């Protein structure tokens, strides 16, 4: 003890009042970042590299190295490792933000060039590939119909399966269902498309139609609905079930009148998120719905179009007019999906399951 007390004045003299050891000033990370970005751009320009990705990579590398060197010198090796980790985490963050922001920015700015009311209300009927004009109405209609049919098929099956797993389950069958629902979540969308192709089109001999696409989408949607509904039903407090059962109400009425209404907010959210997921699926639609330029309001007969397929087709055409149509359709698609997502999350927050008490 006495030793420590004797030591203290010496330390204060050496380290000018700091409680621990010497530290870099608080503004140093920002300064180092600014310096390395400047150096990165400088080196990039001097070496004549055109790709800004390289500039960024050089800057990031310099940032990490400078941080390490400076901290080792001033604060010691443990602090240096800590600082390197911090700067690496920040670099990761920036690395990821750049492409994602660019994706959003490019889609919005390029999409807005063509997007207007005319684009939303007209089909591609009679529009040549190289010609500007035309629209996305037929694709929008197709997407809405296919997704609606898929939801009508998948939502009840998914919901009932989740009810089975939570309310009735517990046996071997329930275990198997749980496992295969998990596995089914990971089925690539093109495999679901191939399955419907193998059965509906090749074995049963039906032609391409919106309904065939909807069936493949339903396969992709089911496991997502099951998983989210299951989580929500598990949150419903047991006391509610017991109270209802104690009043002599049959189990099925308890589930319909007590359990499901309690969890309805979360279930709706789950279904909407699943809808958002399948809306953007291109591969099964490409195999099964085939695409057309015309408005075909009947999903059970003949080829239809859909938004993601439209984007793909217009991109494949490759003319300037077609590519700008692709961007506009991409913007419509992304807006559709994002609105679904935001509304779903809004509902989740608004109707959060009332747990406990």
């Amino acid at each position, binding site marked *: 003890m006495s030793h420590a007390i004797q030591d203290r004045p010496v330390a204060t003299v050496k380290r000018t009042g700091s409680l621990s050891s010497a530290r870099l000033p608080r503004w140093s990370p920002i300064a180092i970042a600014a310096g390395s970005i400047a150096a990165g751009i400088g080196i990039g320009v001097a070496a004549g590299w055109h790709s800004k990705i*390289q500039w960024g990579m050089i800057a990031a590398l310099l940032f990490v190295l400078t941080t390490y060197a400076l901290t080792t010198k001033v604060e010691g090796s443990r602090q240096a490792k800590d600082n390197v980790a911090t700067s690496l985490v920040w670099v990761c963050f920036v690395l990821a933000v750049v492409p994602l922001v660019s994706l959003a920015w*490019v889609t919005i700015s390029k999409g807005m060039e063509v997007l207007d009311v005319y684009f939303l209300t007209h089909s591609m009927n009679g529009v040549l590939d190289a010609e500007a004009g035309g629209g996305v109405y037929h694709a929008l209609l197709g997407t809405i119909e296919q997704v609606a049919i898929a939801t009508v098929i998948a939502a009840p099956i998914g919901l009932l399966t989740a009810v*089975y797993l939570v309310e009735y389950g517990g046996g071997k069958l329930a275990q198997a*269902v749980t496992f*295969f629902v998990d596995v089914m979540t990971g089925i690539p969308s093109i495999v679901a498309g191939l399955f419907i192709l193998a059965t509906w089109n090749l074995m049963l001999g039906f032609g391409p139609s919106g309904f065939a696409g909807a069936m493949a989408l339903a396969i992709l949607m089911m496991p997502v609905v099951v998983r989210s509904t299951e989580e929500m039903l598990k949150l419903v407090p047991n006391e509610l079930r017991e109270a209802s059962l104690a009043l002599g109400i*049959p189990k099925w009425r308890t589930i319909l009148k007590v359990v499901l209404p309690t969890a309805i907010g979360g279930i709706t959210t789950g279904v909407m998120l699943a809808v958002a997921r399948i809306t953007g699926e291109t591969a099964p639609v490409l195999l099964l719905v085939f695409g057309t330029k015309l408005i075909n309001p009947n999903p059970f007969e003949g080829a239809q179009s859909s938004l993601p397929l439209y984007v793909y087709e217009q991109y494949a055409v490759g003319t300037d007019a077609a590519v700008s149509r692709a961007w506009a359709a991409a913007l419509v698609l992304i807006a559709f999906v994002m609105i679904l997502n935001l509304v779903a999350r809004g509902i989740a927050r608004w109707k959060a399951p009332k747990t406990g008490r």
Partner: protein
Amino acid sequence: MATTTPDIQRSRRAKSASRPGDRVFSGLSRGSGITLLVIMAAIAGFLTYRAALAISKDSTNFFTTFEWNPAGNPPVFGIAVLAFGTVVSSIIAMAIAVPVAIGIALFISHYAPRKLAKPLAYVVDLLAAVPSIIYGLWGAIFLVPYLDGLNKWLNEYFGWTYIFDKANDGPARNLFTVGILLAIMILPIITNVTREVFLQAPKMHEEAALALGATRWEVIRMSVLPFGRSGIISASMLGLGRALGETMAVAVVLSPSFLISGHLLDPGGGTFAQNIAAKFNEANEFGRDALIASGLVLFAITLLVNGAARWIIGRRKEYSGAAA
């Protein structure tokens, strides 16, 4: 589920079994569960059946042939190139995405200012919902020209490594670009799951480490990462599953060929899903069967990867953040 005493439970069960409404409802819900199982079995069964039709007429070895010509006489097709392209692009994607995703997850869970962390997690959630065709469109029109420069640079300075040796001077529509694009696409998924795990790391461990004078990195290395290891692995497997099965983004970006080349910067190669999307329109019925055969292989691979991921998650029951 109900935690009533055994006696009451037994009498309730006896009674409820006699109610027609209960029988109908439990039958319906059990039936839905069975429907799901039947669908899974049917997918495996029908794909295998059609694939067997195709493979039995294939005049060469399905697994080692470098050609795709099911319309030829005799039909020749094999998946060697597709398997190579799928595996290589997924490896590149994982090598980039996993470390970066861990970084972002740590950023959100431990480094970002509180005010930034919540909206950031929300945005990452939203990004996971962006349709793949939009990533593809962006990749083909925007990313490819940017990567041209990077490709030239890699070729110039790392050409001696063989894999970065660029013989063909075309645009960057190669497996390397596909890998980078896939990495960007699976980043949000991996980040979401890993972040959930990191947030569940026991606070007491972290505080104990801090109290011993550990730096923030030491806290993460000693208490957060060991706790999250299985979460990281299973998240990566989920991401890998997505990368393996990704169709449209690859189909849009890659300029395919039926050659295996170790030069990753040369345009060419292909993946299972991309090949199906690209060859489908020109295929006759037999050609479609051949494509189904390649789809079956993809199905089997993703099944294995996902099964492994679930198994790793299953070993840690208390963690349930994998609801994709």
